[in-house]
């Protein structure tokens, strides 16, 4: 059998494209969790980003406004979460769930008038280089700016956490808010910032879905990707580089599912669709089995409220 090498390149590129929203949202959530906050609202923030991006693009016609507007929408909605969990010291899990339920509802409410409207073409970079190198060209060239940003983000995130002073402060706040606070760090402020950053990244992930990946608005179009992004953070044991690997695996599962259907593999479509969720569970089990390792890599104060009497 002769396999067209460029076809292989195209498949890899499509896997990467479906990994983009997962990488963005996971890297954002990773920073939030590293500061000790568990935000289960990723799915809600993502869908808000998706509708905001699409709506702004349709109304203003500007892609730049739409992309940044989606990030801002993610920030705004995560502010609710930040205010509740940090200022009013509410339970992280319950607040995150409320955020997801609320986000899905609000997005459908706003999106009512945007169903069925075709999207716009999003400009791609390096399109002229598309046919230069076999195999690598389709992987490297001809993608949107968000695509390139997503694949740089894990490395930026890793550098930020390991090498910068602010990154160190974030980790300190997540591992021991008491000692960080005693050192004069404003724990609440750091956590606010990390939650809002996570919101921005989830918003961007949503905008990627509705503006670039499948340029249209469909109710509930994130389809659980926010939850998979949350699982990826556990999968990565809070290491941004491993998010990249995890996101590629899940992107791969999504894409394989399409190709298996295309070549007529006789497996019910529902089982293929269920595959990413089942694999997520299996992967979580394998990762978590070693409880010592998990304990060492989990931010020690993850999900615990911090209250300082003043």
């Amino acid at each position, binding site marked *: 059998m002769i396999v067209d090498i460029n076809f292989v390149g195209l498949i890899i590129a499509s896997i990467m494209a479906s990994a983009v929203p997962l990488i963005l949202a996971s890297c954002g959530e990773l920073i939030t969790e590293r500061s000790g906050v568990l935000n289960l609202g990723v799915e809600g923030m993502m869908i808000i980003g998706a509708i905001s991006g699409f709506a702004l693009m349709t109304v203003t016609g500007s892609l730049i406004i739409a992309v940044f507007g989606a990030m801002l929408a993610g920030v705004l909605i995560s502010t609710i979460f930040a205010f509740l969990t940090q200022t009013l010291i509410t339970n992280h899990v319950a607040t995150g769930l409320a955020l997801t*339920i*609320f986000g899905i509802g609000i997005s459908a409410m706003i999106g009512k008038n945007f169903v069925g409207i075709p999207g716009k073409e999003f400009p791609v970079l390096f399109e002229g280089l598309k046919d230069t190198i076999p195999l690598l060209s389709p992987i490297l060239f001809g993608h949107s700016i968000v695509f390139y940003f997503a694949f740089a983000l894990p490395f930026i995130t890793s550098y930020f956490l390991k090498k910068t002073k602010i990154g160190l402060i974030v980790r300190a706040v997540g591992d021991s808010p008491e000692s960080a606070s005693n050192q004069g760090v404003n724990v609440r402020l750091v956590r606010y910032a990390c939650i809002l950053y996570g919101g921005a990244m989830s918003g961007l992930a949503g905008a990627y879905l509705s503006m670039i990946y499948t340029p249209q608005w469909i109710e509930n179009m994130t389809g659980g990707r926010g939850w998979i992004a949350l699982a990826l953070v556990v999968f990565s044991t809070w290491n941004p580089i491993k998010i990249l690997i995890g996101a590629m695996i899940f992107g791969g599962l999504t894409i394989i599912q399409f190709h298996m259907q295309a070549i007529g593999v006789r497996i019910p479509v529902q089982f293929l669709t269920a595959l990413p969720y089942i694999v997520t569970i299996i992967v979580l089990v394998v990762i978590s089995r070693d409880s010592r390792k998990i304990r060492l890599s989990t931010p020690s104060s993850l999900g615990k409220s911090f209250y300082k009497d003043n």
Partner: protein
Amino acid sequence: MIKIVKRDQPSKAIFFFTPILAIFLTLIAGGIIFYILGFKPFEALKFFFIVPIADKYGFSELLLKATPLCLIAIGLSFCFKSNNWNIGAEGQLTFGAIVSGGVALLFYDQEGFYILPIVILAGAIGGMIYASIPAILKTYFNTNEILVSLMLVYVSKLILDYLVVGPWSNPEGFNFPETRQFSDSARLPLLFEGLRIHAGIFLALAAVVISWFVFYKTYLGFQMKVSGFSLKTAKYAGYKGKKMIILVFLISGACAGLAGVGEITGPIGQLHREVSPDYGFTAIIVAFLGRLHPVGIIFASLVVAITYLGAETAQIFMQIPKYTGQVFQGMILFFLLASDYLLFFKFKFIGTKK
């Protein structure tokens, strides 16, 4: 000057007052949202919260929606009280519906008093089997139960979809994604002529009574309470943590499974693609709004059930999308969590003495 001070002990009175405050604040915020959307706030709220339950039929619909919410929330309160985050009740409901529906289909051409109990039991077992997956993975493999139970929701809906489209679809059904009608013996009886409210409500009420008894009159209830406060204390007291985790998951799975039975053997009488409009997720809100207290959950399930009906009425009469119901549900939980601040903190007025 006003100063915020931490209370020495959470206030008991405020504990039961804040849910009412949260509902009130949700109504105000909802009015504002309606106003922004260009509706008259009071009229919209009336369509949302009063019109749907103004007649006999509406009230029956309210009880119909409140039944699964109450049942699932009762089950979830076992989990939440003991610090187990089962958020996959929607999946347990779906799987319970699949198993009980499968059993009901076995008897589709038979009548007999024994069929309904078997079908109900099958639903509870189905829910328990499905809930045991996150429970076992949590206890023996240290896996996060939030993510596992949630992932299983998607899986259960896909299994259901596969079954009703494929092997279980009605052979005389012109390829509609639904199964045969169950026989009358497999159906929960309707309580009143012309209304849809069915005997499932007694399952919910039984769950309320039993849970009240377990929470407040048994050693298990005490153990759950202690583990909820502090896992360390529970360990120190020598409680069998693993056993309890599995038990509370099984209880909540059984309740969700029974809710699934109610959905398919009640008014519908067959399996189809959408057995539940996210009752499993909404019940999480009901559990919190009811303060994880059996009686509180009854009231909370009625309040939250209105948001389902209101969304439907508002969609018909005002062309407001039905997702508005979810917006209200999210807001109730937000406001409830926010007003919990008053539980632990109080505002102290400091005199201007010099």
